[in-house]
């Protein structure tokens, strides 16, 4: 029952957030999550710098939640 309430609340929450969202942010939600964690932020910045300064087309990082993210620039 608690799980069901949680799911319904989440569904309603995402609707209201998307409807009344008035931000001028220029960073995606995924990137905000990465930047919120110090280790992930460091890995991400290093990977982007690598993409910028080398001819590498793709760069894969493993986040602290074990999610693999492949970046392209």
């Amino acid at each position, binding site marked *: 029952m608690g799980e069901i309430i949680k799911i319904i609340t989440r569904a309603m929450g995402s609707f209201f957030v998307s409807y009344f969202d008035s931000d001028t942010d220029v960073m995606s939600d995924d990137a905000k999550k990465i930047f919120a964690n110090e280790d992930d932020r460091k890995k991400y910045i290093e990977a982007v710098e690598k993409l910028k300064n080398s001819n590498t087309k793709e760069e894969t990082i493993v986040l602290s939640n074990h999610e693999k993210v*492949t970046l392209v620039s």
Partner: protein
Amino acid sequence: MESQITITSIIIIVWLIFPGVVFKRFYYKGQFAKQFGVGLFADRLITSIFWGIIVQIITFLIYSKYFGFTYTGIKSKVVTVYASVSSNKIPDISYDNLEYILGYLAFLIFTSFCLGSLFHFLIRYFKIDLKYPVFRFSNHWNYYFRGEIASMREFKSLKAGKWLTTMVDVVIEDGSENNKLISGFLTQHTISQKTGELEAIYLTGASRYSKNEGKFKPIPGDCVIIPFSKVIDLNLRYTFKVLTDEQKNTIKYDRITSLPFVTISLLIIVFPWFLKINAFLKILGILLGWLTWVMLLMLISNPFKPKDKLSSKMLWTLFVIMVVFLILTLLTLQITPSWEQIKNIF
């Protein structure tokens, strides 16, 4: 003469300009909200009247269909009221007429809100503004800073996945002979309320190019704010995330479910106002009906969910709760079928 001008002005403002303003308020929202107050007064007035007329026509057609009034019927009442006002007499308006007028006004504002929100939603949802320049919002910086240009025809080659961040290399004028080159991740931007132009950009993880050392050196601090008036050059570089098949399916699933979700939600909000029940029951019915719809959509869409599917136990629990809410909604809105109707079905 003076009173005629005043009455005409009030009629135009309340019945034409105000609905247009409400429409525009909800059409220009989110990152485009500042476009609402930008531009010449005459231009804003004309567009408000234009949208006001459209909203007025739609409201009139809906309202007259459900409440059975005609143009000639309204005209005769308006003529009577106008005759009283122009001869400095208080118009004889019955309570029923007043309820009628205020009801229409409330419905007019609600229609403006719905149309404004719906138009905005459709244009952004189907990326119409990205495909057709005529529908583009004036805050063009948003399209560049959020990597949305990747969906435009001229930048199609950029499309490589889901946009994550925008990195910016910016040359700024610092008053000395040597300009500064700063690089960092864009986090925010501000738009002028008056002109709609870019005011400032906010960078995080910023670094400054050192000519002596020939490399970028990190700038201590968490956020660098650069006024746009100091900017000479701006170079943007997007970072995209390569999507797995599961992630692509999740995005598709979200897009497919959001359209019926918004459409039916709007219908649930509108429908109870045509029922002959008191306002409290209408509001309660909307709330219960909407929760029922949320649960029903979760049940219907579950088999198509790419991940985090509900277990069969949870599905049954959700189904039972949904049925209870459905019955409560029908009882609240007093639209339960009669015993005779049920018998006829079987």
